[in-house]
């Protein structure tokens, strides 16, 4: 069993719930007497609330209470520390004062007896503002008040001098817009107080961080709070940290004495629950006359909010992907009137690799070398930023395998040289890269007398398949079939598990679950060999356990009988496993995307038609769900490359496409042919399963691969995402200026 279940592809253990509509998401909970909160959101991006007229709203049917900065309990700030387990991204409390820092900020919350009554009343709240000039975008921010130093900076060698003396060089600036996570499920909180205890259903990628933050904010002990998030309609980073709506729900519940549900409307999913910030990235690369990189500089600025500094670490990969003695990576931020940004799938790396891998393509062309060959010649064999070996790095193999399957050899390098009918065909590629991380984790496994195993861990399954791989790990250790393993996640009453983010859930959780399983078996053996046990004459260490059977010298007994005979409910194991030891190795995942695009200049239509991705993430625990992760990331990467941007009015910082019709994500019809190759090189330096995690890597490099293919098809180098048709068209007249 052990050999087959890890790395196999069983369908999900929670699949029946999902296909039946029975998986409970946050807003599917209806505690008795629940009231509905509906927000009133600022319609200016900068200024003050001068008056809130509630006269009409109060008369509206079903209204219970209306909260705003003049009527809201006094709460506390959280220190917002991930290490302490109380991080939030937007540190300002809702209704803390009359200030408005971004459009779509909570300025009031109406609580009523039904959703329709709450919404109707919210529309009747009349808010007056004293509007100030807003900083509407990154350029305006830099111009108005310059930049602040960020984090994650790095330098080695002398990149300036080596650039000047190099044989070939490029110097280009790339830009990425605000992208919004837009998980299908809108953020939702159902909060209930019973006396001084708070219970919250939240759509959360990190129930423990939310619990910690709520404890600080409400000034109560963490053990007075329980947060549950058994299913979430995904998050992509937007649900890592609690956002203001949850505080409004919890406070409103306490004040009204009723459970309160607050769902963030789709429009405000663009404003008050984070986004990937706008970036500008200058890339200066140089090679010697052999095409070896001699200088790499990646300088990035991202927009952040006026309340918090969020740094998009665009150069995080640039430090180590390629071998180069002279490297500079720097990050700076500038403040704009938008909500606080947050991590979005592959933070830093996704926009960073758009810039880096576009620049590498440009550098290869400048040096007259095939982009694949250029990369193979320059990939680093060790992490030069830390002077450590990689635990496992198969990027060359990934690149070669993907190139072969894609048919890269058929590419003629000249732009616009491949044509089929009305369409120009372009081939492009880029590397993928993401750090592998692993954190401490607790888990508990009970082998129950009814023949099942019961597993708990306060991590979450955000759609990646965590429920299933946890069961696979328990099955691997105990030999129990998946049908007899119950997995419970997403509840702060369980042993401490990781945030579901950063692609670290698998690597973090499985070792703890496996260790807890082994400890449960140890306890089982201890029960069996105790005075009353069925194997009282045997030493525990001589007893073996396989496929649910305890045995010694040919005498075997099902473990359920052993427990039953002693009238024991279960044998239990609790484990704590540590984080990765990063002193000996640099742990990263690698891969390559190869993309075919088709450009029809007669109707200015661009489409991504084919993608081959080879991914080196160590061992994939479940090939069915792992492949799905990469395919989904490719689709999101395609969207990032081609469609996605939250646009703001440059005059007042108001978002202008904050809805699902005009913020374009890929649809079924945009789906290209996708072929994912999962390399299978277990990384046992990282953990016993050899798994490094797979959620983020598929989106990294994807936008650059598309941009590089677009260049090959059209001869146009697009350095600003998204690659919309207007950027590729000829003959566009000068606009009339207002």
């Amino acid at each position, binding site marked *: 069993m052990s050999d087959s279940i890890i790395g196999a592809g069983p369908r999900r253990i929670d699949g029946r719930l999902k*296909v*039946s509509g*029975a998986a409970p998401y946050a*807003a599917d909970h209806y505690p008795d007497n629940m009231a509905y909160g509906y927000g009133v959101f600022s319609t200016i991006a900068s200024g003050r609330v001068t008056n809130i007229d509630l006269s009409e709203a109060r008369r509206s049917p079903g209204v219970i209470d209306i909260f705003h900065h003049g009527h809201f309990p006094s709460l506390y700030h959280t220190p917002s520390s991930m290490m302490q387990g109380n991080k939030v991204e937007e540190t300002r409390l809702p209704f803390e004062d009359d200030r408005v820092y971004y459009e779509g900020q909570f300025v009031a919350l109406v609580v009523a007896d039904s959703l329709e009554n709450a919404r109707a009343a919210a529309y009747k709240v009349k808010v007056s503002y004293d509007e100030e000039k807003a900083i509407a975008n990154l350029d305006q921010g830099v111009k108005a008040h310059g930049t602040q130093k960020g984090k994650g900076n790095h330098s080695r060698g002398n990149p300036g001098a080596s650039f000047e003396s190099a044989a070939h060089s490029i110097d280009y600036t790339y830009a990425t817009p605000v992208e919004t996570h837009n998980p299908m499920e809108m953020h939702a909180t159902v909060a209930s107080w019973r006396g001084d205890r708070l219970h919250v259903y939240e759509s959360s990628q990190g129930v423990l961080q939310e619990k910690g933050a709520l404890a600080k904010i409400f000034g109560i002990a963490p053990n007075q709070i329980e947060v549950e998030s058994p299913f979430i309609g995904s998050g992509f980073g937007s649900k890592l940290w609690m956002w203001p709506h949850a505080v409004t729900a919890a406070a409103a519940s306490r004040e009204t004495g009723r459970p309160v549900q607050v769902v963030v409307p789709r429009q405000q999913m663009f404003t008050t629950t984070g986004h990937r910030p706008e970036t500008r990235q200058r890339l200066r690369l140089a090679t010697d006359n052999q095409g070896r990189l001699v200088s790499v500089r990646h300088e990035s600025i991202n927009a952040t909010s006026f309340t918090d500094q969020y740094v998009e670490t665009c150069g995080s990969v640039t430090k180590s992907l390629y071998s180069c003695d002279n490297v500079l990576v720097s990050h700076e931020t500038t403040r704009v009137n938008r909500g606080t940004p947050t991590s979005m799938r592959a933070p830093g790396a996704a926009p960073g690799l758009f810039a880096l891998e576009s620049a590498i393509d440009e550098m290869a062309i400048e040096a007259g070398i095939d982009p694949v060959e250029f990369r193979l010649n320059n990939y680093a064999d060790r992490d030069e930023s830390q002077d450590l070996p990689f635990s496992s790095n198969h990027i060359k193999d990934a690149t070669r395998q993907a190139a072969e399957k894609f048919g890269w050899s058929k590419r003629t390098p000249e732009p616009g040289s491949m044509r089929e009918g009305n369409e120009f065909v372009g081939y492009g590629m880029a590397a993928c890269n993401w750090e592998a991380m692993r954190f401490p984790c607790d888990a508990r496994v009970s082998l129950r007398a009814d023949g099942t195993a019961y597993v708990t861990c306060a991590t979450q399954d955000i*759609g990646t398949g965590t429920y299933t791989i946890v069961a696979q790990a328990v099955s691997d250790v105990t030999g129990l079939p998946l049908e007899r393993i119950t997995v419970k996640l997403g509840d702060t009453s369980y042993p401490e598990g990781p945030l579901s983010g950063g692609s670290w859930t698998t690597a973090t959780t499985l070792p703890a679950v496996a260790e807890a399983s082994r400890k449960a078996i140890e306890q089982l053996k201890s029960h069996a060999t105790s005075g009353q046990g069925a194997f009282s004459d045997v030493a525990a260490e001589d007893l073996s356990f396989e496929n649910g059977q305890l045995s010694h010298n040919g005498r075997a007994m099902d473990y359920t009988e052993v427990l039953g005979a002693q009238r024991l409910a279960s044998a239990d194991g609790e484990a704590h496993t540590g984080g990765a030891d990063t002193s000996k190795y640099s742990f990263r995942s690698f891969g390559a995307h190869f993309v075919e695009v088709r450009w029809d200049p007669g109707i200015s239509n661009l489409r991504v038609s084919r993608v081959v991705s080879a991914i080196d993430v160590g061992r994939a625990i479940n090939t069915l769900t792992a492949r799905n992760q990469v395919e989904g990331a490719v689709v999101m990467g395609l969207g990032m490359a081609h469609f996605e941007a939250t646009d703001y009015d440059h005059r007042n910082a108001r978002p202008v496409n904050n809805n699902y019709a005009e913020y374009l994500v890929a649809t*079924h019809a945009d789906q290209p042919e996708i072929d994912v190759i999962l390399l299978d090189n277990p990384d046992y330096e990282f953990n016993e399963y050899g798994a490094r995690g797979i959620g983020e890597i598929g989106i990294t490099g994807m936008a650059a691969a598309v941009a590089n293919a677009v260049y090959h098809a059209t001869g146009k180098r697009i350095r600003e995402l998204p690659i919309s048709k207007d950027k590729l068209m000829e003959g566009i007249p000068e606009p009339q200026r207002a």
Partner: protein
Amino acid sequence: MSDHHKDDGSRVETFDARSPSRRRFLKSMGASGLAAATAPAWAQIAQASQSQAEPVEPRDDGAPGEGEQQIQLIVNGVEHTLNVKPNAVLLDVLRDRLELTGTKKGCDQGQCGACTLLVNDTAINSCLSLAVSHDGDEITTIEELSQGDELHPVQAAFWAHDAYQCGYCTSGQIMSAVAILNDDNIGSDDASVREAMSGNICRCGAYKNILAAVQDARGKMKGAS
């Protein structure tokens, strides 16, 4: 249809946070699907289990209140008499009043398809429908598709093909797929299915697997339903 998945109930436990008077019939769950869960004592919540399975009482008490109108909705074969305000939305009435939470709200603006269900066998966005204008209509939601433990071929195919990630758009995807597969006017080729399904956004991007599931179910629905 194939029934190899009948006995393989999910093992992710969950519970139903509703008072006994408001609980709903969780008929689609297998015996192992909704094992009793440990709920915090303070929450005083009812736990869904087989023994408690019973339909939500279909009738509102008494005459319509001020500004309300009385309507009949035939939801999943059960007639419900409800007093609703004119501005109550079909999606919200199904979720908040009948507690049929399988149908999801993704945008509330007809832009994502998560709320797709069938009205008189036609797929529509329930977020853009007034409940009051559906008086007398037959409404089919995801909860109705499976027969006891036996999943509908489309549900089974979604499970087998991993045609989801987070699962939030899944009800809508499945309801659209059922409508499309029962519609002779929609071509059976991949491109036609993709276009017809494009009103159902999957932000996780599981489109490849969804297409595979729909095409797989197509074969299995012949002769069934």
